[in-house]
C-alpha cells in the first residue's frame, strides 16, 4: 500500500513498532467538484440573463454564495445599499477548475471569448436542481433574492473601474 510507511524506530521506553498511515482528509463541501459545478449551473440559470456570464461575474457570484457574510454583502450591493467598490471579492482558482469540469461534462460551452453559457443539458440539470426542495435551499434562497441584479457593469464597478 502506498500510503503506509513503516518506521522501525524503536523507543527504548516502549518497545513497539510504529505504523504511520495517511488518513483521508476532510475538505469543505464547497470544494467538492460536484457541489461547485451544481452551484455554477444554478447561478447561470437563476442570476444571469440568457444563462450566460463572463468569468469575473461568475467569480463574484460564486464568492457571494459561500458564507452568510458574503451573501448579505452581495445582496446589499445588489440593492444599492452599499457602494459596490467596498466589497472585497476573492478570486478563487478552484472556480476555474470547476468551470473546466462543467465544460468537460458538456454542461457549459464557451461563447465569444471569455464568456460561458449553459448548454441544453446544463439547463435541464439546473431545472432539475431548482425543483428539488431539499438540496441547495440556502444557496437557492440567496440566488432568488439577488436575482439578475448583479450585472456585468456592477461587477466592473466592484473592481474600481468606471463611475
Amino acid at each position, binding site marked *: 500500500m*502506498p*500510503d503506509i510507511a513503516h518506521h522501525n524506530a524503536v523507543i527504548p521506553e516502549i518497545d513497539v513498532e510504529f505504523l504511520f498511515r*495517511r488518513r*483521508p*482528509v*476532510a*475538505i*469543505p*463541501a*464547497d*470544494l*467538492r*467538484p*460536484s*457541489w*461547485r*459545478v*451544481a452551484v455554477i449551473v444554478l447561478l447561470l440559470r437563476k442570476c444571469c440573463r440568457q444563462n450566460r456570464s463572463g468569468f469575473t461575474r461568475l467569480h463574484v457570484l460564486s464568492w457571494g454564495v459561500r*458564507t*452568510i457574510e458574503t451573501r448579505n454583502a452581495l445582496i446589499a450591493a445588489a440593492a444599492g445599499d452599499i457602494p459596490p467598490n467596498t466589497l472585497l471579492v476573492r478570486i478563487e482558482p*478552484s*472556480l476555474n*477548475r*470547476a468551470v473546466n*469540469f462543467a465544460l*468537460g*461534462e*458538456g*454542461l457549459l460551452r464557451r461563447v465569444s471569448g471569455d464568456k460561458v453559457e449553459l448548454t441544453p*443539458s*446544463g439547463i*435541464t*440539470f439546473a431545472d*432539475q*436542481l431548482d425543483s*428539488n426542495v*431539499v*438540496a*441547495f*435551499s*440556502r444557496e437557492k434562497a440567496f440566488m432568488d433574492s439577488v436575482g439578475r441584479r448583479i450585472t456585468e457593469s456592477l461587477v466592473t464597478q466592484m473592481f474600481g473601474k468606471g463611475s
Partner: protein
Amino acid sequence: MRLRRLQLRVQTTGGPYGTLLNFPDGLVVIWADNTMGKSTCVKAILVALGMEAMLTANRSDLPLTPAITSQLADGDRIHRVIESEVFLEIENRSGKRITIQRTIKGERDKDLITVHDGPILTSPRSPVVSQDFFVNRQGSASRETGFHHFLAQFLGWHLPTVQTYDGNSYPLYLQCIFPYFMVEQTRGWSTIYPPVPTQFRIRDANKRAIEFLLKLDAHKIVLQRQELALEKTKLESSWRVHVEQIREIAISIGAVSQHLPMKPVAGWPPQIIPSLAISEINNTWISLEQRIQENEKSHALLIQQEIPRVREITATASADLAIAERSVNEREALLARLLDALEQEESEVNRVEQRLVTLEEDIQRNRDVKTLRQLGSSQTSSIDGGHCPVCHQTIQDSLVPLAPEQVVMSLDENIQFLSEQKKTFHMVLSNATRIVASRNSQISSGREELSELRDRVRALRQTLVSDGRLPSIAAIQNRLQLESTIKKSRDALDRFLQVLDGLSVLSKKWKDLQSELLKLPPGDLTSNDKDKLNEWTRLLQEQLAQYGFGSLPRNQITISTDSYLPEHEGFDLQTSISASDLIRTIWSYLSGMLELSRNSETNHPGILIFDEPKQQSTREISFGELLKRASSAGGSNQQVIFFTSENRSKLQTQLSGLDHKFIPIEGKLISKQIN
C-alpha cells in the same frame, strides 16, 4: 350468558313469515338441511347483539340474506319483504332475562336497538320497561345510551381500556371479544385467531380479548408499566422545576448552587449535601450558611457596643474611612478584571456559536452533494465517478490541489467527521455558557458589595463632617446594612431549604417508583396467569388427541405466553398443519377456553356457538368426539350451541347416549306464520 329464544318476524307481500328457536342449557344441536336458513339464524343472532362488525366492515347494510332484507322465496312464489325484525331473549349469570329487538328492514333506524327488560318472548304477558340504545356510533361502547355499554353491564363485565393505533384509548370493544365464543361459518373456520374486526384499529386486539376473557393479570401489568412510565416522566420534570427554582434563588443573591443532582436520585440526602456558595472578596467561594454566621457575628458585636457619638470615634472613623476607601478601590479593580474575563468568555461563546453555524452549513452542503449523486443525474457522472470528463484520467474529489497520494474523505465519512466536530463544539458551547453564567453571578455579587462599600464610605464621610454630639451615622448605617444583608441571605436560605425539602419528597417518590418497577414480573405474566395458560395447554392437548389431530406431535403443542396462540416449538401452527387439523385446533382452542372457565376465575360467559363446525373436512370420528366433549357443558351450567347440516341419521347415532337437546328443522327455517 345464555341464549333463550330467537324470533325472526318477516312481513311480506305474501303475508307474515318467521321462525322461532329455543335454546335450552347444555349441548344444543340445531339441525337443518343446507340452504334452509341456518346461517341466517346465526347471523340474525349476531345482528341482534349489534355484532355485525364481525361479519363485515361495511356499515351501510346489515349483513343478512335477501330472504329477510329484500325478497323471500316460498316454493315457486316470491314475496317482497316489507318489514323484518329480530328478537333475541338472553339471560345473564344471575338469571335475569332481557329481550333485544332490532329492525332489519323497515322505517326504524337500523342502528337503534330496543331492550325490553324482561322475558317477553317466553312469557309474553309480563309487563316490561323498554329502552332504546344505539350501536355503530361514537360512544356505543362507552356512553350510557350505547347498546354495548349496556350489554357489557348486563354481562357483569368491566371492559379494560385499550390503546388504538392512532393513540386514543377506548374500552375493549365487544366485537373483539365475541368471536372467541361465537364462530360464524363464513369467516370463523379459516384462522386459529378468531377473526376479530380490524376496523377499530385496536392494538393487539386479540391479546387484549384473551387477557380479558381469561382474566389474566397481564394487561393490568402492561397498564401498570405504562402508568409508572408516565409517573417517571412527571417526577423528572418536577425535579427539573425544583432545580430551576434553586438556580433562581442563587441568582437573586449572587450565589451559585453546588452538588445539586440535576436528575432524580433515590438516595436522599446525597453524600455531599447541596449548598449555595457565594463569592468572597478574595475571589474564593464560601457557603451561604458560613456567610450568614460571619455576618451575624459582626452584627452581634455591633449590638454590644452602644452607638458611638461622633466625637468619640472621629479617629477610628477616619481610619475606617481609609480602609473602606481602599477596599472600594480594590473592589473596583477586581470588578474590572472580572468584566474583562466576562468579555473574553462571552466572545468565546460567540466564536463557538459561529463555528457551529459554519459547521451546520458545511454538513448541509455535503448532504446536497449526496443528494446530487442520488438524483442519478447523468450530467456530472464522470466527475462523481472520479474521472476527468475529457481525458478520462483519475481525478481527486477536490477542487484544490492535494499532496500526492493524499486521499479525500468520502462524503459519508466527511459528514460523520463534521457531525462529530459539531458534537464536540456543542459540548464546548455548553461549558462556555456555564462559565459565563457563573461569571455573571460573581459580577453581580461583586457589584452589590461595591455599592454597600460606597454607602459605607459616604456614611463615614457624613459622620466626620457632622456635629460631634450626634450619634455616628456610619455606625447606624453599617448596622442597618448588615441587618438587611442578613435578612436577605436568611430568606434565600429558607427558600433554598424549602426547595431541598421538596427534592427530598421527590426523591422518596423516585425510590418508591423504582421499587414498584422492580416488583413487576418480567415478561408481564404473573404466576397465576401462567397456571391458567398451562391448564389451557393441557385442555388443548387432551382435545387434539381426542379429535385425532395428526399433523404434529400433540404434546409439543403449547399455548404461547406471548401471543396466546397455540404454537409448535415456538412456531405458529397456522401454516404447518392440514386443513382438517386447523378445524380441530380451533375446536380445541375455543372449547379449551370454555372448559378452562369451569375451574378457574375468568370472564368467559360460559357459552359457545359453532356454526357448521364440521366444514366437511374432518372425519366422523372427530365430530363424534367433539359432540361428546361438548355434552359435558350441561353438567357445568354452560351452553354449547351447534348449528349443523350433517347427515341426520349419522348425527343421531353420534348423539345417542350423550346429554343433549336435538332440534331438527324440517324444510325452510323461515316459514309462513299462521296467526
